[in-house]
Structure formats: C-alpha cells, structure tokens
C-alpha cells in the first residue's frame, strides 16, 4: 500500500473543536458502537418496500463515520467516472464530427460543386463546339469528355459517401440516370452534325434542355444538401462540452471537500489516493478545456477562412460558367428567346448573362474580402480583372451581333484570339488557383483542429478510471482505520 500518513495524530491528542458536529464522535479512535440515529427504527416494520428499506439502511449507515466514508467514496468514484465517461462520450462525438468535416463532408461539398461545374462546363463545351459552325474542335471535344469523366467519377464518390435512403442518395441516383441519357443525345448530335444535318442541332437543343432543366437543378440541390451536412458537422464539432466541464468541476469540488473534511477530522493534510484522483481530474479537465478550445479555434478558423471562401469561390465559378453558357446560347438562339423586363424586350440569354456577370462580380468582391493573405487575394484580383475585360469584349461582340455581323460576333465570342472565351478561361483558371489555395488553408486549419482532439476521449477515460481508483483507495485507507 502506498498509503503513508504524513501527519500522525495520536488518538490521545485533543481533537480540534467541532462545534457543528458535537453529537458525532470527534475522533474515530476505535471502532465505536454504532450509535443510533435519533429517529432510527430498531424493529422491522411490516410491508416495507425494498427501496425504503435501502434508504433506511443508507440513512442508518450515514450516521456512522465508516458509513459516511463509504458513501463519500462511492460518490467521489461515481463523479470521477461519470466525468470521464461524459468527457469521452462528448469528445468522441466532437472528434468524429471534426474528422467528418475534414475527411467527409467538406470533400463531399467540394465534390458536389465539382459535379455541378463539370456538368455545366461539359454542356458549354458541347454547345461551343457546334457553335463554331463547322465541326467541333479537338479542344472543345477534349474539354467536354474531360468534364463528363470528372462528373461521373465524382458521382461515384458521392454515391459511396452518402447514406442509402438519404435525399442526397436519391439526387445522386437521378444524376447517374440522366448523365448517360444526356451523353447519348450529344453523341447523336455529333453524328448528325458530321453528316451535315441540322437535326444534330435539334439533338443538342434537346440535350441542353435536359441539362438546364433537370440535371443542373439536381446538381445544385446536391451541392446545397452537402453544404448543409458540412454546416451540421461543424455545429456538432464546435460547441463547448458543458456537461463534461460541469461534471469535472463538480468532481473537483467534491474531491476538495472530501480532502478538507479529511483534514478537519484527522489533521492529515494529504491523502495520497484523493490527491492522485484530484490530479487526474485536473489533468483531464485542463486537457478537455484546452484541447477543445484549440480544436474549436482551428475549426472556426477553417470555417471562416476556408469554407466561407471556398463557398464564395465555388459560387463565383458557377456564376462564370452560367454566364459563359448564356453567352454561347445568345448566339445559338439568335434572338429566338426574348424576355420583357422593365418595359423593354431583351434577348433572354443575354439578360441572363448580364445577371450572372453581376453575381460573379459580387462573389469576387466577397472572395477578395474573405481572402486573408496575398496568395489568396492575387488570383481573385486577377479574376476580377479578367471579368472586366470579358464584359468589355462581350459588349463589343453584342454590338456586332446587333448590327447583323453574326460571323464577327461569333469570332469575338468563340474565336481563337481576343475572344471572350479567353477571358472566361482566365477567370476559370484564376478561380481554380484560388480554390486550391483556400482548400489547403482549410485542410491546414481543420486538420489542426481535429488533431487537438486526438486521444482526448480515450485519455479521459483511462485517467478517469485511475482517478476513481485513487479516490476509492484514498477513502479505503481511511476506512481501514476503523477495522
């Protein structure tokens, strides 16, 4: 036994005065006859419930010091174990949520954005290919194929990571069904286009309709759902573990009280078991508060500087893609669709183009504000510059088209040099760079946050068991003095 009494108080020495406890034996020098509680019953009463019986026994026990010590020991052990268990439980939840943020929900939200982007880009590439008047170019074909491939791969990943029966899974299944249908329509369009038949264009219109009206809304829906999941994981990972902290404080207070009581009764300053229990509980509590604060800071940082930037940049990229798609469709439709707004008749696609460009401008401004270092800001500024040039060239191209110079307008939009296509590509490339940068920042911050929680729950569990053992032993040591 490691129990060493530091201050041995002989039984003959005068006990400290105990005004409040005068009816109780001052020093348990020898096993005293168990005094009865004033109202304790000696004869068993008939028809008593087990609970009442137990309660009475407890009350009877509480009147003797060993009985009290037993109760104190049990309560201390229970408190410490409960503290450990609640800590382990709450921190397992938070660590799992933090791990989900880093390894599951954020990548899935990014993947969903990529699915949307790939689909929209594939559609734009397909329509640009046909827009060129002749056969599609190798560049536009490659771009289309690459995007379809990306979308298919990311859909497989998203399907593997979604819970069966969840709304995300239904959306993914829908997209998986529509993608081959879409591809089939584009393939037919290509074949007919090669033969010089305008029905190829009709197939492309049909494919575009399918993409715009069914696939892109589904992809957007998926993106929103995955973002919700990400936010939910953040909400699970960051709140303070109040229950664990409260239990920890309660356990510490109880331990302090027990030791104080011990000192008052025995004049012994230290009970090794109780000291060890206090030490472990303090360590766990500190670990819990500090570790969680670090994790919380890391995660909040990853949200503020990572996820928010990523969301805005994804939105910007999607807006630029929509704008590009509408710009192309303006030339494909050649004034076929109009919309009345503000008493004026506008070309429907050009109207949408301007709306998307405006949205792009807003997103880029937001992204610039959210970027917290120069390497994050640079690509965003560059993209804003590309966008301004795009707007300028677009206006010039529209003017040519309005004047009936369709071929010149076409060259200014999809031509090989000085076309708006260049600006769109630059915007896209810059946004890609910015996204990669923010992604790294996010991984860094969220990784730090998650790592701050490493081992906390198992550590808390082990230490709590040790602490409880210490408390029991400490009380046991005192208890043994009565035997």
């Amino acid at each position, binding site marked *: 036994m490691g129990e060493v009494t530091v201050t041995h108080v002989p039984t003959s020495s005068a006990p400290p005065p105990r005004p409040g406890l005068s009816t109780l034996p001052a020093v348990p020098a020898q096993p005293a006859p168990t005094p009865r509680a004033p109202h304790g019953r000696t004869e068993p009463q008939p028809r008593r419930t087990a609970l009442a019986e137990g309660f009475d026994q407890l009350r009877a026990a509480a009147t003797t010091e060993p009985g009290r010590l037993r109760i104190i020991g049990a309560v201390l052990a229970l408190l410490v174990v409960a503290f450990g268990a609640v800590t382990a439980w709450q921190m397992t939840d938070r660590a799992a949520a933090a791990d989900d943020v880093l390894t599951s929900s954020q990548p899935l939200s990014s993947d969903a954005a990529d699915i949307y982007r790939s689909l929209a880009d594939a559609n734009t590439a397909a329509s640009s290919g046909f827009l060129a008047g002749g056969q599609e170019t190798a560049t536009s074909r490659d771009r289309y194929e690459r995007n379809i491939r990306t979308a298919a791969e990311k859909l497989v990943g998203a399907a593997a990571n979604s819970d069966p029966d969840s709304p995300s899974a239904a959306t993914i299944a829908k997209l998986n069904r529509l993608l081959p249908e879409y591809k089939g329509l584009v393939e037919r369009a290509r074949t007919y286009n090669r033969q010089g038949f305008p029905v190829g264009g009709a197939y492309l219109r049909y494919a575009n309709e399918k993409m715009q009206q069914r696939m892109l809304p589904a992809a957007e829906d998926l993106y929103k759902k995955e973002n919700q999941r990400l936010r939910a994981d953040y909400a699970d990972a960051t709140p303070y573990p109040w229950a664990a902290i409260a239990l920890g404080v309660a356990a510490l207070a109880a331990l302090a009280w027990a030791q104080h009581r011990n000192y008052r009764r025995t004049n012994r300053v230290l009970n090794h078991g109780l000291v060890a229990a206090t030490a472990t509980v303090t360590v766990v509590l500190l670990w819990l508060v500090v570790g969680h604060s670090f994790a919380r800071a890391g995660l909040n940082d990853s949200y503020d500087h990572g996820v928010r930037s990523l969301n805005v940049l994804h939105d910007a990229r999607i807006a630029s893609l929509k704008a590009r798609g509408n710009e192309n469709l303006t030339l494909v439709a*050649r*004034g076929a669709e109009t919309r009345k707004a503000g008493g004026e008749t506008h070309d429907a696609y050009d109207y949408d183009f301007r709306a998307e460009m405006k949205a792009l401008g807003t997103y880029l401004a937001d992204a610039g504000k959210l970027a917290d270092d120069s390497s994050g800001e640079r690509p965003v500024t560059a993209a804003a510059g590309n966008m301004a040039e795009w707007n300028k060239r677009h206006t010039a191209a529209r003017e040519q088209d309005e004047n009936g110079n*369709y071929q010149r307008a076409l060259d200014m939009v999809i031509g090989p040099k000085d076309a708006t296509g260049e600006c769109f590509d630059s915007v896209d490339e810059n946004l890609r760079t910015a996204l990669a940068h923010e992604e790294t920042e996010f991984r860094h911050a969220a990784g730090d946050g998650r790592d701050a929680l490493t081992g906390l729950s198992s550590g808390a569990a082990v230490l709590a068991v040790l602490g409880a053992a210490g408390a029991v032993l400490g009380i046991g040591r005192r208890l043994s003095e009565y035997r």
Partner: protein
Amino acid sequence: MRARRLRASLKGWGGVAAMAVVCALAAVFALCLPVAGPDLVDGAAVTRAAQTRTVRAEEDCEAPEQQTLSPSSADGDTIRAIKNREGEKRKLIVGVDQNSYRWGYRDPNSGQSAELEGFDIDLVHRIAEDILGDAEAVQFKAIPTDQRIPAIKDGRVDMVVRTMTINCERIKDVAFSAPYFKTGQQVLAPKSSPVTGYDDTLAGRRICTAAGSTAYSTLKADREDGRIPADADILKAVPNQLDCLVRLQLGEADAVVTDGALAASQAAQDPTVQLKGDAFTAEYYGVAMKKDADDLVRRVNQILVDYRKDTANGWQASYEQWLSATLGKDARKSEPPAPRYLRTT
C-alpha cells in the same frame, strides 16, 4: 429478420387495403356517374362543337393567299425607314429558321463560315439586294415557330421568311405577300410503322407537331370533327418541327405532322422514316410583314414577280439547288398558281 418479415406482412395487408380502397372508389364512381355523366359530356360537347364552328368559320375566309396588295416598286415610309438605317445597321432584319434542312439552316460541313443557307435564305438575299442594293445586307434572327407573329408585331423584325403558311387566322395579325411556294400537310412516320397516312391508322398514335404551326391547329380541329380518330394523341407541341424528328427517333412520338416540304426535309435526314400518304391540305408560304407596311408588301410582291420570272438566278434555280433532292425534280407541284391581288386596303 423479424422487421423484414413484419414489413413484408404489412405490405401484404397494404395490398389488400389498396384493393379495398379501389373497390370502394369504383363503387362510388359507378353510383355517381349516371347523375353527373350526361350533363358533363353534353356540356363539353356543346362547347367543342361551338369552338369547331368558329374555327371553321375563320377557315372559310376567301382564299387567304389572294388577300394581298398589288405589286409596286415605289418606296413608302417603311422602305424609307429601312434605307435610312445608318452605317453597320443599314440592314434588312429578317426572321428566319436555322433548323429547316434546305430551307434555312447552317451546314456544319460548309467550312468555318456560319452562314445560313437554303431556299428561304436565297429569297431573303434577293429582297435585300432589291431594297438595299446589297444581297448581304441582312440581319438574320432565328425565330421559333410560335414567335413569328409576335416578332413582327413587336417590330423586332422587318419581315419573316420562314416557311410560313398564309391562313385566315394569321392575316388578321400580319400582312402577307403573294404566295411563293405551294405545299400541304403530310404525315411522317417510320417506314416500319403501320401508319399509312392521315387516316384511321393514327388511332392511339402519339403525334408530334410544332407549337403555333398550322399542323397543330388543323390536327386539333380535325380530331373534333372526327376526321381522325378521337384517341389520336396530339403531344405537347415542340418549339420547332425538327424537334419532332428527334422525338420520333427517340421513340417519344409515333408520327409527325408538318408541311410536306418540311417533312421531306426531315425524311432526307433519316432514311428510316418516310412520308405516309398524300398531302391532306393545300397551303401556301408567304413573306409576312407588319400589317400596315403596305409599301413593303407591294415591293416584296414585285420582287416575287421578278424572282419567279428569273430562270437563271431566281425561283427555279433556287428550287433546283435546294429542294429538287428532297421534293423531286419536278418543281411544278410546288409552284404556286399565278398570283391574284385581291386586297385593296
């Protein structure tokens, strides 16, 4: 395991319950029908008959293709306004189609140019050359079938040259030139299809038409009249007649009804479909313009007279270049009769 069994047994009971509900509903319908039925059917029939009568009354207007102004080369306000357009904008704005094979379309194999070409486009160039002295001074606007009249009324285009049939309904909204082409509605279906023409074989078939086309209104009216079976399924109209070929090939439609000239264009793009039966209407294509653009209508009529006379670079040459392959070498059945100009105001 138990949960699954429970679910299976629940499903079994669900089936029984569903059957019970269906039986109950059937009983309720059987009881209610004799009361509500006759009234409902009669009311609907009366309305439909009335509608049919109005449609027919409009159809009965005197030869709409002759309701046009006599030719003249004099410039009026409309032509002067077009000629006064400045610089790059000095162009004739024409609504055309870019999806009608050999009428107005872009050949993907014509090199890098995005020029529209076809029978309608030739005529547009001829009109531009005559009015503005430059055959290329044209701004083409692609117009869906059901946007032709709104585009003219809103002044978005000077004229529409887009396989547009002259009919009684339309001459209320726009002014037409004399006819420049003769055609009629025809049925198009896969070669293997049991559909033989515009007749009872259309029973239960899904028929595709373009929104705002004469085919759509004719089909609706004929189904009311019983000229085609009542269970012929007229599908939701598509924006362009060519979209019908897509639906046909994808198995979403069983037959297409459109102008013979356009149906032949569709058949030319897919050797597995063919025209079924003869044309069941006689229709004429005209150039549509604003209702009050009298000088422009007279001018276009004058141009058409010259165009048809011109054998070297006129109507005949254009027909041979674009349409003889799909409609046959003999242009006489497509040529409209000598124009009459019965409209005076």
